[in-house]
């Protein structure tokens, strides 16, 4: 049985997307999770023996994932089944 310690949460941007980074230590392992803030879906997570190691891994993976997100053209009005 262990208690999470050093819980830290911060918000930033990756590849133009707002993300929330959460890191805590459980025993000797640091756990980092990065979600996409809105809607808050889990995106990536990583573990490391130091906080920096865990966050660096997670940030790298999240950056790569979020760079692939496609944006459609901004809507121009109320239409039906417009196609892209």
């Amino acid at each position, binding site marked *: 049985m262990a208690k999470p310690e050093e819980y830290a949460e911060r918000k930033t941007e990756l590849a133009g997307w707002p993300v929330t980074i*959460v890191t805590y230590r459980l025993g000797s392992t640091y756990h980092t999770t990065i979600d996409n803030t*809105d809607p808050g879906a889990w995106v990536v997570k990583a573990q490391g023996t130091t906080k920096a190691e865990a966050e660096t891994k997670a940030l790298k993976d999240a950056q790569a994932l979020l760079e692939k997100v496609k944006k459609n053209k901004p*809507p121009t009005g*109320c239409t039906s089944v417009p196609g892209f």
Partner: protein
Amino acid sequence: MAVQTAPQTKQDVLVSTDWVAQHLQDQAIRLVEVDVDTKAYAEGHVPGSVGWAWDTQLCDTLRRDIIPKAKLEQLLGASGIDNATTVILYGDNNNWFAAWAFWQLKVYGHEGVRLMNGGRKKWIAEGRELVTDVPTSPPKTYKAKDPDWSIRALLPEAMSASAKRAAQLVDVRSPQEYTGELLAPPGLPETCQRGGHIPGAKNIPWGKACNDDGTFKSVEDLRALYGGAGITGEQPVIAYCRIGERSSHTWFVLKYLLGYTNVKNYDGSWTEWGNLVAAPVEKP
């Protein structure tokens, strides 16, 4: 018209992390973790909790549907839950899939079910104990009631709500999904052919119902949030999102925290509507 309210109130459906910490040995309850990230449970969970996977255990894995009755009975029984057990659900992402499980338990008529306010995030942020061992308990016999379809909307009802304004549609996805700029939340798979929203739907993202620590906002704040958008409970409400879990969260808020009586979750959601041939789509 007077606002209709359900008999259940906030106290009946939410428990705090403090309460859970004090009831870890309580044999009348069963803690269940349900996460978006199905590997999170194995990394550490609240002592005594069992883990359910939303993508294999809380659904029909043959056709797209909620968990079948027999499968639910088996899952609950194997989890040490009988009809008298109070199920305390919690999970990541401010209880997204915990709310999904809550909704399904209510479909099958389970009386005692609550959410741990703040979910996994708050438990961890507060530095509370986590374990990795899976609890063992004697299996029990669970008998589910016939499904209560009054809390679930299928496609025809969603279509009627849109075409005839028979119910208020609430799209709880992000504004960028609502406008069609995104087909899925960043980092998640795109599961639809078209972006936009169901004609007539109002956009109230699910997360607006939560505080930063993952807990639900006060009833007063929630009433202002939804009431301010015209969702007052005077008309039937149908909530939807992409696959039905975020909308379970909003369904929970509207039905159990605000007490609206006629609220349904359209779990087909945008993954269904956004793939329909010739279905009307509104942008933005």
